[in-house]
């Protein structure tokens, strides 16, 4: 080996060292996340600007004189060219400041910190239901392909898919709250319990337990159970359908046939061979379903008077509260990016080949 060759080998070894790989991955990851977030903000910014809502009128009202209107217009920075407004906003965000919400007169970051836990609590319970019931139902349907359990599960899934969520919400409230009285009504707790439990996590189930307020905890459970079940039903419908289809695909693979020919028990074929192989696509499905719920389900939030992120962003968008829209969008973007990273990590946990 010539000297030149050996130098090249050393350099190649240097560039492929584990530390370098991690560093390179980190830089590439950060760059990709930043680019995604800036792109997301840019698109939201443009959409909000072309929306037919006047952000100044939203603040000063229709009765404001021209003078007051113009003062507010200037104070909101709307007299600047669009790109300047966008760059100024980016600069603020880079420093962790999303500005003030014109609708709530509070820092956007404070608003988001207040509304997000409500959505997180609801989405997490719905996803737990979705995974806990959806995966076994999907497996059961695949195993019984074409037979009545499969038909029944598909029917339940189809029903969940086809009925509008607001109809479910209103019917659920009418039957379980209005007629049967089994669950609490709209809102996170009964109104007279408002402002009793100190806010720690923002999630009322956790905060009431931390404060030792068992009565309020059960009251909160009675309020969350219906919206969480309705969202969970959608999650179940989606996850069971996807699990079924992934499982059927595995069942047609040769290694499953081989396992069966070798006399492996059917339970082992399903749970030890097929299911682990559908985990990777399933994790993606679950993560995306969770992320969608974390964005906030606007209609569910309206019907159940649930003060969550979806409601917050929609209100802000319709009132042209730009800072709030952008703040909310960054959170949603971060959720998607975060869950994607989590999925990547989980792939490596469940599949040694991905390590």
């Amino acid at each position: 080996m010539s000297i030149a060759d050996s130098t090249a080998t050393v350099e190649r070894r240097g560039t492929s060292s584990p530390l370098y790989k991690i560093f390179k991955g980190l830089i590439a990851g950060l760059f990709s996340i930043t680019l995604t977030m800036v792109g997301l903000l840019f698109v939201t910014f443009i959409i909000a600007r072309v929306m037919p809502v006047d952000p100044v009128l939203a603040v000063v009202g229709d009765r404001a004189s021209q003078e007051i209107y113009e003062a507010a217009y200037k104070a909101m920075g709307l007299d600047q060219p669009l790109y300047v407004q966008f760059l100024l906003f980016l600069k603020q965000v880079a420093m962790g400041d999303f500005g003030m919400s014109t609708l709530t007169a509070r820092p956007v970051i404070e608003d988001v910190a207040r509304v997000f836990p409500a959505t997180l609590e609801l989405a997490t319970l719905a996803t737990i239901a979705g995974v806990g019931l959806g995966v076994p139902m999907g497996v059961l349907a695949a195993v019984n392909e074409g037979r009545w359990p499969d038909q029944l599960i598909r029917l339940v899934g189809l029903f969940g898919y086809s009925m509008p969520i607001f109809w479910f919400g209103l019917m659920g409230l009418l039957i379980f709250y209005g007629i049967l009285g089994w669950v609490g009504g709209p809102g996170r707790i009964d109104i007279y319990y408002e402002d009793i439990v100190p806010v720690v996590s923002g999630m009322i189930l956790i905060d009431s337990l931390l404060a030792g307020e068992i009565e309020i905890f059960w009251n909160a459970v009675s309020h969350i159970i219906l919206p969480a079940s309705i969202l969970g039903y959608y999650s179940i419908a989606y996850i069971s359908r996807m699990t079924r289809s992934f499982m059927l695909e595995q069942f047609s693979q040769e290694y499953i046939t081989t396992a069966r020919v070798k006399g492996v028990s059917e339970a082992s074929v399903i749970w030890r061979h097929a299911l682990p192989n559908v985990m990777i696509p399933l994790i993606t499905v679950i993560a995306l379903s969770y992320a969608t719920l974390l964005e906030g389900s606007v209609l569910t939030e309206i019907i159940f008077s649930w003060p969550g992120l979806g409601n917050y962003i929609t209100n802000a968008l319709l009132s042209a509260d730009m800072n709030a829209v952008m703040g909310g969008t960054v959170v949603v973007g971060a959720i998607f990016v975060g869950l994607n990273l989590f999925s990547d990590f989980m792939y490596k946990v469940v599949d040694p080949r991905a390590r």
Partner: protein
Amino acid sequence: MQFKRSLLSLALAASVAMPISGTIISEAGAATPPNMLIIADRIDDLISLDPQEMFEISGTDMANNIYDRLVELNPADLSKGYEPGLAESWEISEDGKTFTFKMREGIKFHSGNTVTAKDAEYSIRRVIGLNKTPSFILTQFGFTPENMSETIKAIDENTFQITTDKKYAPSFVLNCFTSVVASIVDSEVVKSNEVDGDWGNGWLKTSSAGSGAFKLQNWKPNESYSLTAVPGYWRGDVAMKRVIVRHVLESASQRLMLEKGDVDIARHLSPEDVASISTNEDLKVEDTLRGRLMYVSFNQKDKALSHPKVTEALKYLVDYKGMTGSFLQGQWTIQQAFLPQTFMGELKDTPYALNIEKAKALLDEAGYSDGFDVEFIVRNSTERVEIAQSLQNTFGQAGVRVSITQGTGKQILGRYRARDFQVYVGEWGPDYPDPHTNADTFANNPDNRDEAKLIGKVAWRNSYAAKDLTTLTDLAVQESDREKRARMYVQAQKTFQKEAPIAIMFQKVDQSSMRANVTGFNPGGAIASAFYWPVKK
């Protein structure tokens, strides 16, 4: 917001089983605590708690119970008009320009500070200095940041004085001082929270510093606010120790909560929901006339619409009874004068009714026997669009071919304020409890040129010169004799009904649905905001 409401209306339509619930739902719900008032309302318009800045309905409802004013309205009898508040008496100088108020002694703010003339001076100067949207209610008396140290001042601890730029009717000045914008704030507390000369606005947007029956406990935007009663309120006993108002957008949800006893009052039930609870003995519905008016107006820049016979004909082409008897039932009542009923100077005459033949004859006289084409602009709210569609139908019967352009507030208001339209269908609510508020917008237009840009006036927006009425309403606002002043407004409205290219059609009716044991709740009638403190149950 409209988008969400339409979706929910759709949801309601889909939920066919809903109407049956009225009879099925168990009536023995868990009642709210006896000393707590719980209200389901829509409070997503609440963007600031600063009384010198807010101009939204739910905001003024809240401030009306946290703050006091120099002169107040009595919830037990709003028709009596203003009466002494934090000022126990006042004197007016001979030239009618200087008002000297004697402060009531022994009143405390929630902080424990005593209410003095210095607080009145700070609060009224704050209106002028902040110059937020509702400030025009007081700046119309000639107060400016430059002259306010002279025109708004505390003479001593117990004497407060204001001097207007010219003579106005005392009733006009005092009525304006009953508005929320004239609330007296705790100057010591607010001053201690001032930042960069902001008059404490940054702080007061989310806090309270008043002397009213309640103090703010908590406000969660778009979610709820809660108030706590302050012991020893000077205007009377406060039975409710806490008031919690929760934002419940959806009418069906509000109704379920009321039926189950989870709320005492539901303030936004749809006509269908109101009808369905009417048989429930545990509940009651109280109708109150509010100040908002629904009108249709005709731009005088348009050749056909500027013909007096045409505008008269169009007023006969509105199916007033048909609309209030169907889709507006219970929510709006017929009113054809520019002052809402219950206002000083009200006029209840309704000279117009649907009369196609008469309208055709008038159009014929005007030379439009074949009718003409006209475009309506209307904001995309269900109620207004339905009204526009009814007008489209009745106008069509006389040959006036209507096309309807719907749009968002920005699109429609933009065109309306720029006088770029033919016919507008919309609402107007009084800004303060004095007849001048509506007289000034509907019947006063000192400069009809485009360059004048008097965009706050409905008359100007419609290019309606209102020459005689401008003179009459200018005189009325200076008339010292309250009775004579009221008669002047009646006369102005009669002239307006005849000649104006603006047809007032309806006045809003508030339907507050509540548990049968709730008494004393007053949503504020046409001239004020809600009063929570007299409520008992």
